[in-house]
């Protein structure tokens, strides 16, 4: 859709609302929204198409183990297991004989080494299977040549080729012959109907290493000479060092080096304990930061002022108006921001959990004044991300420290710094208006005002490269493009318009699992419940009537049935339901809340139904939905950041109230719908519907519709000193 048409369609809104008097009871169809025409995942796939053939690098070892070098970041979402399954499937190989390693930054992949937009399985499903099918064809050809039989008479199973006489030749014995073969081998991947492994529940391939403590994260690696390093940071965001007295710190036991870098003062010591003690002994004076005058109150006022006006006046029609506020939220992965860097005069080597390693490499090269080719960037498996590791601030900082102090460093951020100086989901304000008449929803408008979300991790370049194909055009900002290609209203609600306006503030934001959708779609699902109530309809029946497709209705129906929608609940308890559709997948969430004490609510039960088109690993998919649910419980009920004079007050998990076991439901059921097509996105899908369902349950249990999130958000702690 061109921008001009988009505008024309906006202007047409009031006209359309009065043009349909005779159609009571039939819902008013809504035109396809940009995200239905082409979503962000499609854009990433399009940008990656020229390099898709080079995506999967497979090696067959003489031990019969096949290694997939995957140019994506594993951070807990299960992509190494899922892609290992794709390889094992095509090669007829037991899953435990596939190894997946994360590729270093490969600049030749251009736009095709970004882990985001719930896009790994969508973008890798074809290329990984094709590559594995080609490897299989080559191994079969090698066996055919060695044994003088036609390729057609050979089959594969259990990691080897079976000859017509029944003899079995393990792939490991064929790999060197296969490597000698000339010619191009390409083969069609198996049709899905022949899948024996893909689509079955499998456990993580690295689970054993994790439960035995053997699994290595960035800081668990030893790089020769790289010693524990920490940074003393400013009292406000983006403050800079004015002067340092490091005499006391330098004389402390174990301290190896101290130096000023753009982000603060770095201390290197023999242990992290000693480095942190010396950091605390530094006497530093600071220059101001970039948002020193701002606290939540001012930021909220800016957001309220920035929300764009509605098109439809509330005159003449019945309507529901609602406004919502969402606080900043820390990504707070368990593994704090960390990186190892070894910078020499003519080269640099970096190790970190990185979802955008090519841009990281380019940026680090330019910061260090080295050619890109002289910088090696190793992608480490991360201890959580939720969008955080799209940014590479720890990697740049480690590189700068290593260069300044002329020694390799192992940099770890403190938890307090991670929450206060790390990234956060941008705070947002939402204005919604729905109009209805004669039993129909006539219009549905959403105006989102958000603190600017930083996408400077390569997404802008991707959007520029694909600009000609985008479903939105003209002069939309990158952020508006991301907004329109990720958020869509899944209902036929007549004329639907969603607009984002951003307030730029110089602070550290970043996409947080589901980007705009958790807040945007969460708010919409609350409005849907209120609209249903005003129109005298049951929340499930109302959604069912207005969902756009049979596939969506099947998901909602299943959730209502499994969750026993409408069952009697004791006083103070209630059910809540919501629906969400993104990245070619959809989900319904039905929760039960215990809000007998409205200040101490607990989600006690959740039923989630999910249709991702084709689940590769249902067990991993269930884990993703469970994670999304826990994120929604946390951010809806208790977890957020208070900004006070240029700095978040929260500095640890005792203050940022991410859910603990006592906040988690006692009963969770995730139902995965059978495969029906190509894989859709799954990593972020679980959050928005759960946000809506929890808020709706809370409203039904307490009689108070929540307007500000998290709902329970006092400063119930003594903030750490700045």
């Amino acid at each position, binding site marked *: 859709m061109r921008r001009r048409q988009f505008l024309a369609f906006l202007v047409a809104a009031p006209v359309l609302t009065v043009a349909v008097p005779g159609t009571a009871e039939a819902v008013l169809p809504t035109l396809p929204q940009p995200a239905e025409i082409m979503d962000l995942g499609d854009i990433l796939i399009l940008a990656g198409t020229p390099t898709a053939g080079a995506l999967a690098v497979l090696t067959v070892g003489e031990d019969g183990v096949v290694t997939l070098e995957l140019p994506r970041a594993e*951070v*807990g*979402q*299960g992509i190494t297991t899922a892609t290992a399954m794709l390889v094992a499937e095509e090669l007829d190989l037991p899953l435990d004989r596939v190894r997946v390693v994360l590729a270093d930054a490969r600049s030749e992949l251009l736009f095709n080494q970004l882990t985001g937009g719930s896009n790994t399985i969508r973008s890798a499903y074809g290329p990984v299977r094709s590559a594995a099918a080609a490897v299989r064809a080559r191994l079969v050809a090698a066996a055919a040549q060695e044994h003088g039989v036609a390729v057609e008479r050979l089959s594969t199973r259990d990691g080897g080729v079976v000859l017509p006489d029944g003899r079995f030749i393990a792939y490991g014995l064929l790999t060197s012959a296969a490597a000698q073969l000339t010619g191009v081998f390409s083969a069609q991947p198996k049709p899905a109907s022949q899948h024996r492994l893909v689509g079955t529940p499998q*456990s*993580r391939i690295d*689970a054993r*290493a*994790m*439960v*035995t*403590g*053997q*699994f*290595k*994260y960035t*800081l*668990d690696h*030893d790089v020769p000479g790289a010693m*524990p390093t920490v940074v003393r940071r400013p009292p406000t965001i983006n403050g800079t060092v004015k002067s340092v007295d490091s005499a006391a710190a330098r004389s402390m*036991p174990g301290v190896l080096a101290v130096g000023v870098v753009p982000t603060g003062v770095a201390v290197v010591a*023999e*242990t*992290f*304990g*000693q480095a*942190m003690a010396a950091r605390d002994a530094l006497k530093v004076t600071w220059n101001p930061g970039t948002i020193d005058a701002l606290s939540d109150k001012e930021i909220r006022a800016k957001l309220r002022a920035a929300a764009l006006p509605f098109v439809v006046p509330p005159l003449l029609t019945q309507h529901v108006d609602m406004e919502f506020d969402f606080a900043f939220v820390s990504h*707070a*992965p*368990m*593994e*704090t921001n960390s990186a190892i860097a070894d910078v020499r005069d003519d080269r640099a080597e970096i190790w970190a959990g990185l979802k955008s390693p090519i841009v990281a490499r380019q940026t680090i090269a330019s910061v260090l004044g080295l050619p890109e080719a002289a910088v090696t960037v190793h992608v480490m498996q*991360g*201890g*959580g991300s*939720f969008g955080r590791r799209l940014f590479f601030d720890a990697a740049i900082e480690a590189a700068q420290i290593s260069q300044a102090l002329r020694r390799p460093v192992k940099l*770890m951020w*403190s*938890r307090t710094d991670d929450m206060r100086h790390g990234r956060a989901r941008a705070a947002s304000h939402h204005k919604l208006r729905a109009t209805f008449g004669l039993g129909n929803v006539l219009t549905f408008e959403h105006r989102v005002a958000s603190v600017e979300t930083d996408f400077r991790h390569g997404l802008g370049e991707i959007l520029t490269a694909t600009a000609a194909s985008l479903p939105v055009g003209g002069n939309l900002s990158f952020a508006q493009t991301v907004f329109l290609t990720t958020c869509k209203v899944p209902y036929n609600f007549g004329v639907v318009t969603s607009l984002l306006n951003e307030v730029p503030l110089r602070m550290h934001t970043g996409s947080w699992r589901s980007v705009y959708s958790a807040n945007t779609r969460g708010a919409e699902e609350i409005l849907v419940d209120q609209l249903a109530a005003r129109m005298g309809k049951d929340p499930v029946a109302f959604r069912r009537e207005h969902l756009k497709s049979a596939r969506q209705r099947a998901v909602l129906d299943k959730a209502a049935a499994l969750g026993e929608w409408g069952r009697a609940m004791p006083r103070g308890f209630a059910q809540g339901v919501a629906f969400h559709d993104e990245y070619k997948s959809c989900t319904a969430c039905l929760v039960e809340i215990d809000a007998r004490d409205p200040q101490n609510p607990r989600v006690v039960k959740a039923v989630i139904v999910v249709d991702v088109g084709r689940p590769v690993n249902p*067990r991993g998919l269930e*884990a993703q939905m*469970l*994670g*999304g*649910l*826990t*994120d929604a419980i*946390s951010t809806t009920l208790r977890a957020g950041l208070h900004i006070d004079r240029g700095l978040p007050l929260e500095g*640890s*998990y*005792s203050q940022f109230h*991410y*859910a*603990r*076991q*006592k906040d*988690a*439901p*006692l009963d*969770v059921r995730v139902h995965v719908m059978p495969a029906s097509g190509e894989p859709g996105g799954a990593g972020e899908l679980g959050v928005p519907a759960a946000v809506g369902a929890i808020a709706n349950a809370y409203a039904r249990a307490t009689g108070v519709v929540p307007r500000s999130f998290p709902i329970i958000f006092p400063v119930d702690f003594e903030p750490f000193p700045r």
Partner: protein
Amino acid sequence: MPTYTFVVNGKPVSVEAPADMALLWVLRDKLGVRGPKFGCGIGVCRACTSHLDGVEVQPCVTPVSSCAGKTVTTIEGLASGDELHPVQEAWLEQDVAQCGYCQPGQIMAAVALLNSVGEPSDEDIDRIANVCRCGTYFRIRQAIKSAAAKM
């Protein structure tokens, strides 16, 4: 600097360290025992949870001086050789881990709970305050119940 002698995962060790150095850094930076993870350093995330003489502790707030003459068990010392502890087995059976970073601490906390309560109730399990930022709590609960049934 004083020297402290204690046992880590069955092996006697002697380390020279300031008395107030947290056990976590002695383990990770001096002894190379990297199973216990740093998540906060103030005893609230519990990613570092280990056992001192069989009792759950948070090494990030346990001074090394308090370990002298005692036995430290970290996640690496839980299995006997290749044979996993039933709680580790249960973790595999339920496929609990996502990023895995909190799981050494979760498992050590669960083992401590099961050592004191054979059949933990939901309320008992709720008292495990370890953070899992990936939100695996429900699978943790199931794994603890499954391990309890087998132990």
